[in-house]
């Protein structure tokens, strides 16, 4: 793989019992790029995210991030390397406030010693204040500044998704994996999300997007990878994918073709 790639996944497979969820999938994403992974339900998109973030281990294949082998690393090691993710079903620390949620993400920035937190030294207070400010900036970025001290579990769904993105950004990732960020959002919220993801890219973060909402996918993607039954069926720019026969079949079935020919 050439070295301008941030993440490269090659021939990765994962089977659960006898079911092959991911079958020899190969792709890569470069610095600062936005790539989408699409496909019908059950195509293995979320499994692919779980493989990259170390939540499940691949049965076969290789994955490299910035030249480091990811296979066999634990989720926290992968998180520390600079890959952050969100979850399809939103996993927040729901009893903590919006600000605290994002501050947790800054845990590596806070490198004060245990002793300085016990004695509440100046260094400790300065670092905590800096983390608070940093977290505040990210909350402003996603547009939740009016909710700063709200308990995360009390936010409406759309705002919880934004908070999850802010928390992921707090780890200062080079690659952000977003699992269906637009699901359940209304049109205005979708436009807002598109603007947010563009701003995230401006911060030199590459984004890998699993999404069903084609408006969002087409507006953002540099490249699209299409999966069906765990296999790659197409890769290309948005325009190419729209015209790809295999993709149309995967989404709509062969029946359309059959009907047209009659």
């Amino acid at each position, binding site marked *: 793989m050439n070295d301008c790639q941030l993440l490269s996944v090659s021939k990765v497979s994962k089977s659960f019992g006898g079911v092959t969820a991911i079958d020899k999938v190969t792709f890569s994403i470069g610095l600062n790029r936005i790539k989408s992974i699409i496909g019908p339900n059950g195509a293995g998109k979320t499994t692919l995210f779980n493989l990259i*973030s170390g*939540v499940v281990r691949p049965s076969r294949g290789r994955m490299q991030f910035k030249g480091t082998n990811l296979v066999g690393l*634990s*989720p*926290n*090691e992968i*998180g*520390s390397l600079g890959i*952050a*993710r969100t*979850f399809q079903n939103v*996993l*927040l*620390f*729901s*009893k*903590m406030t919006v*600000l*605290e949620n994002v*501050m*947790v*993400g*800054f*845990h*590596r920035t*806070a490198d*004060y010693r*245990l002793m300085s*937190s*016990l*004695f*509440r030294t100046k260094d*400790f207070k300065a670092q*905590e*204040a800096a*983390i*608070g*400010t940093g*977290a*505040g900036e990210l909350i402003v970025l996603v547009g939740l500044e009016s909710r*700063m*001290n709200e308990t995360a579990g009390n936010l409406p769904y759309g705002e919880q998704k934004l908070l999850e993105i802010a*928390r*992921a950004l*707090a*780890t200062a990732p080079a690659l952000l994996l977003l699992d269906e960020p637009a699901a359940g959002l209304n049109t205005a919220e979708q436009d807002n999300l598109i603007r947010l993801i563009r701003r995230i890219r401006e911060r030199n973060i590459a984004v890998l997007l699993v999404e069903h909402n084609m408006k969002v996918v087409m507006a953002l993607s540099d490249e699209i990878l299409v999966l069906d039954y765990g296999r790659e069926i197409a890769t290309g720019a948005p325009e190419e994918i729209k015209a790809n026969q295999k993709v149309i079949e995967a989404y709509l079935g062969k029946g359309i073709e059959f009907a047209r020919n009659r």
Partner: protein
Amino acid sequence: MQIQHRLDNRRNNQYPVFWAFTAAVMLWPLLYPSRYHLNMMIFVGISLIVVTGLNLLFGYAGQISLAHATFFGIGAYSSAVSCTKLAWNPWIGMAVGILVAAFLALIVGLPSLKLTGYYLAMATLGFGVIVEILFIQLVPLTGGPDGIGGIPSLSIFGFRFNSDFRFYYLVWVIAALFCLIVMNLVNSKVGRNMRALHESELAAKVLGIDTFRYKLKIFIFSAVYAAIGGSLFAHYISHITPESFGIMHSISFVAMTIIGGMGKIWGPFLGACIITILPEALMAFEAFHVIIYGGIIVLILMFFEEGMVGLINVILGKVSIRGKKWYLQ
């Protein structure tokens, strides 16, 4: 800057209350030196030390230990054996207890905390039962069911803590110091990370937090607190027997944590008070005291999900909205 300001405000709130409370506890024996109440407050203080550690583990990090009376016993027996059979300095005995408890917590925690879920509860339950049997059966070391008597009192530079009055101060200075340590810990990234892994271990891991190491360290930390409590207990009552360190006492430490209010700084104090004092106060009801005791605890838990802290919040909330802020940690 506005963010920072709010943050500091909320955090510093609990410190003035803590210092005021500590001052009250320190003054109390001078104003009201009843031997019976001093004795009871010493037991509350010893329990508070154990429960403060357990609250960190259970209330904040969400891991249940059913062996805290065991670690308490390990501290007590280490002190007892070191002082009576080996004639060591009592403080060395306490240090031995700390080391043994920390080592055993490491051994129990290593396999069980790798897993997500309540496996620590199972592992500590087994461990507690095994150690309880050892306390009873290792007669040459532990004295068997008769226990060990004649444990000397503690002393610093020739000053002996040999009266209830003196021991009260020893216990409560240690308890206040340990509460302060936990408060500072909880108000740092350690506390944030613990609460985070309690709520969603997966989300915490994905953010790069090594949840296993966190859980293990906190478990060891809380076992050390229990051992120190046990050591003080042994020096105070001077004769220990295995029945003080059984599974029922482990459950009672867990009960103190829950009744007080989990994951709240004031929880352990309120829990230790209720569980220690209530049975004494209800003695007037003779045979019925167990039923009334159980009934009160059930009522607290039914109506106040957050335990005694929740109850006090409701009362203060009615008295004044501002007062409530003090207790919100």
